């Protein structure tokens, strides 16, 4: 911990950063994000295995961007998000310094995104066993039961859009659900509208989602929304060999194609 704090203090001292996004302890087991603006606040900075939040989501916020030079303490999911976002041209207006703590508890300060990319590729995470188990279970159901399962889940959705707010990939200044010329998605929290929202979200994140699972964790009514995108990523890798959050020159399944892409349903 001391190592990390010293490193960050150093960054503040030599003027590399003037805002640090990291984690601090909370009443619950899971640490919470914190924003450190001066050296005196560095003491609260911690990093443990329980630091799950994807802090990259804050990099889209205007108030964070204003700081100019931002340090960000990143877990592997956050690093993937940073790689993916770079491939989506999102960091043209900020200067950032990325830190992580590896398995051996060494603090790494990346000098550029290429280093982050190399680190991500060397430590690329597998899909979580738990998610795969649930997906396997869902796949074992009949179509009608799956429909029942998901529509029941979606009937509970209150359209709070927390899943969107927490997602580093959902950075559109105006989301399609807010589009009313034409109105693509019903605004009220009815199941059909909810269903459309979640299908659309899955389509927009397929191949871009970096599997941090924040959306599922954050959902106040407990819908495992992250499963949709996890499944999509799994399928895309199987079908097209693409991986999200893997390369700075992104290889995104939906803006590329191969003339011999295989499918079994087009007549």
């Amino acid at each position, binding site marked *: 911990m001391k190592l990390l704090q010293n490193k960050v203090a150093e960054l503040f001292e030599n003027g590399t950063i003037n805002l640090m996004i990291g984690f601090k302890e909370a009443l619950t087991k899971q640490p919470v994000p914190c924003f450190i603006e001066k050296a005196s606040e560095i003491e609260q900075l911690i990093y443990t295995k329980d630091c799950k939040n994807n802090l990259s989501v804050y990099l889209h916020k205007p108030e964070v961007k204003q700081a100019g030079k931002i340090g960000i303490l990143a877990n592997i999911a956050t690093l993937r998000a940073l790689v993916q976002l770079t491939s989506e041209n999102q960091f043209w207006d900020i200067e950032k310094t990325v830190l992580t703590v590896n398995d051996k508890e060494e603090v790494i300060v990346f000098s550029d995104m290429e280093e982050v990319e190399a680190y991500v590729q060397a430590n690329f995470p597998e899909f979580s066993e738990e998610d795969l188990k649930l*997906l396997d279970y*869902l796949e074992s*159901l009949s*179509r*009608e*039961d*799956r*429909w*029942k*399962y*998901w*529509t029941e889940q979606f*009937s509970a959705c209150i359209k709070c859009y927390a899943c969107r707010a927490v997602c580093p990939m959902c950075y559109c200044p105006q989301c*399609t659900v807010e589009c009313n010329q034409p109105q*693509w998605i019903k605004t009220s929290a*009815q*199941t*059909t509208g909810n*269903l*459309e929202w*979640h*299908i*659309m979200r*899955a*389509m927009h994140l*397929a*191949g871009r989602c970096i599997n941090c699972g924040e959306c599922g964790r954050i959902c106040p009514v407990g819908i495992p929304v992250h*499963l*949709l995108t996890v*499944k*999509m990523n799994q*399928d*895309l890798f199987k*079908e*097209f060999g693409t991986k999200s959050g893997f390369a700075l020159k992104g290889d995104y*399944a*939906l*803006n*590329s*194609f*191969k*003339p011999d*892409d295989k*499918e079994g*349903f*087009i*007549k």
Partner: protein
Amino acid sequence: MSEFEPKIVAFVCNWCTYAGADLAGTSRTQYASNVRIVRFPCTGRIDFMLLMKAFENGADGVIVSGCHPNDCHYTSGNFHARRRWIVFRSILDLIGFDTDRITFSWVSAAEGKKWANLVDEVTDKIKAKGPFTDLDKLDGVQLKELYDEAITK
């Protein structure tokens, strides 16, 4: 009760399938009148959201059709569309949506006969499946339950 006549919406590209449907006309090939065509410049323009909106607005079946691979008027619109459909279908599959109600096809400008057969087949298939009510049920049931609950209180 009269026989169920399904509503089928066809999203087609201008250069191949729309022209193929025109050819079915010029060769006077008869087919089921349950289909309504919406013309797009290219399959690449066909938004998956429109497919959802079609079902939401009461379509019983949807046909999506364009140029065969390598024949796209814009060279690669259909290739992009194909990837999009692969992904879209797999999301629908996961959610348990009845993907049998969406038929994807390649119909070229020369395949008037194929177009007519396609429409007939899809019409028969959807007739056999009956009206699409999966979405109506969702909100319908929910509202009815709320209503019943309110009444009993």
